[in-house]
């Protein structure tokens, strides 16, 4: 493994010895790092170290998002080396029979598939005002894929959970810089035992790519992406919620609405779990021009553990609304594609809005409740276009 890194090191030595091609090395080894950024996917580069890639919203025109177009969120360095033969998954804590599984052993456990819309809790953070620190995502830290692998509950049942086991903790192989707390989080036992919560090994029918957690990741459907720990290597059943930075103060929402810009005490917060109701306009693109006549407005809408019941479109800045047609493809935790055929008769500047509603009665707000970490931003989406 690491042949590319070794290659670059060797190349570096040879080039420096010859005093040649400094331009190459300046590209290949910025700040002394080798590069593992996928460079051919047309993704929005929020950061390459750590790798944080956002999908341009115009990609959201297929029910399943191709893996090269699927957003990537890393809090830390990806594991520099994961050898499938050496990889092990340990299951311990509040269990009668702790066990360790190889990838081969894991692959022998009955597989289940879930089409899930995975969304970063911070999707849309960059649109929140006042701004808050963190990756300044637009609306593209979301995607939908078919995830496959053993059910988490089947593995936990092999280990025989004790009655004291109330939460399930995941630890990945992320490489931790400095004194940063490890990215460890937990989910309640009820969600862990849900028939659709997986130890996923495949994404859209292929083994997970490195950026998406090879060789296995948790898949906690309908919940924020942070629940679905990548490069999974340890599962531990706990008596209480895991106590660590990424459970508290990280990934929490205020219990009560707060004034934008206010600070919130940790004791007045709760963990972010399931996603809210949300939609995005994939086309036409914001700032684009088109001819009057038939204009197809399309996009996607999702609601975590709930179902989308309608998507409404406004072409007059919110004065009047019309129902969009929902796409045929659907699954419990997956987004619905939608489209609306607009007969635009007059030239001019228009603001198009999309607003989704789910079967829990939730509707996207015009202005979402502000929170200090910019989680679950779900304002009515909008694009401005010009018709000539």
């Amino acid at each position, binding site marked *: 493994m690491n042949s590319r890194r070794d290659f670059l090191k060797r190349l570096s030595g040879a080039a420096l010895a010859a005093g040649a091609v400094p331009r190459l090395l300046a590209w290949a080894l910025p700040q002394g790092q080798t590069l593992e950024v996928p460079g051919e996917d*047309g993704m929005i580069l929020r950061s390459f170290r750590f790798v944080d890639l956002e999908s341009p919203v115009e990609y959201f025109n297929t029910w399943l998002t*191709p893996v090269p177009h699927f957003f990537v969120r890393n809090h830390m360095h990806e594991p520099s080396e994961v050898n499938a033969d050496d990889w092990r998954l340990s299951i311990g804590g509040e269990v009668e029979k702790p066990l360790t599984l190889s990838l081969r052993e894991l692959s022998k456990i009955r597989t289940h598939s879930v089409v899930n819309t995975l969304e970063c809790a911070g999707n849309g953070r960059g649109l929140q005002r006042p701004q808050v620190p963190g990756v300044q995502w637009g609306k593209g830290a979301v995607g939908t894929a078919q995830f496959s692998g053993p059910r988490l509950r089947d593995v936990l049942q092999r280990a025989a959970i004790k009655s004291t086991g109330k939460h399930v903790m995941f630890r990945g192989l992320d490489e931790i810089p400095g004194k940063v707390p490890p990215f460890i989080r937990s989910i309640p036992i009820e969600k862990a035992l849900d028939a659709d919560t997986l130890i996923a090994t495949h994404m859209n029918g292929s083994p997970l790519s490195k950026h998406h957690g090879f060789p296995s990741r948790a898949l906690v459907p309908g919940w924020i992406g942070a629940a679905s720990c990548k490069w999974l290597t340890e599962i531990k059943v706990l008596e209480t919620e895991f106590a660590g930075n990424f459970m508290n103060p990280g990934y929490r929402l205020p219990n009560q609405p707060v004034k934008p810009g206010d600070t919130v005490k940790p004791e007045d917060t709760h963990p972010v779990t399931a996603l809210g109701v949300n939609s995005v306009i994939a086309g036409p693109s914001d700032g684009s021009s088109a001819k009057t006549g038939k204009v197809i407005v399309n996009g996607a809408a999702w609601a975590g553990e709930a179902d989308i019941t309608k998507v409404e479109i406004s072409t007059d800045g919110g004065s009047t609304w019309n129902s969009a047609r929902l796409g045929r493809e659907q699954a419990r935790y997956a987004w619905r594609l939608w489209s609306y055929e607009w007969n635009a008769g007059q030239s001019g500047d228009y603001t198009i809005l999309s607003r989704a509603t789910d079967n829990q009665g939730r509707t996207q707000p015009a202005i979402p409740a502000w929170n200090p970490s910019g989680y679950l931003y779900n304002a009515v989406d909008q694009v401005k276009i010009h018709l000539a």
Partner: protein
Amino acid sequence: MWHKIIRDISQLCLVLTIALPFEMWAQKSAPTSLSADLPAGPMQAKAVTVCMECHEARIILQQRLSKAAWTKEVDKMTKWGAVVEPADRDALIDYLSTNFSPDKPAYEPPRTAGHKSSPENTLK
């Protein structure tokens, strides 16, 4: 003398043989610079030393925060291992809050090189 020149030329040829195809690939697949720089200023060099140890500049370039928020961030990162000399703390906060304040225009992120991916929009 000739021996040394021949050795240097052969070494250079070796490097170019290895490096040029790689550079052509690099130029083809990564037209945007994958490294970014922090803006000039009295604390630029120290900010690079302190912050770039763990992450790249774009993490900073995209933020638009008040001085109070930058203070929290600098103190959090110091707790997480960033080596900020006590004498540099206030100057570093000033540098960040001056260059990356809420009134600055939004940061425009680059895109990675694009190509037509084979769609995987059908279940296998």
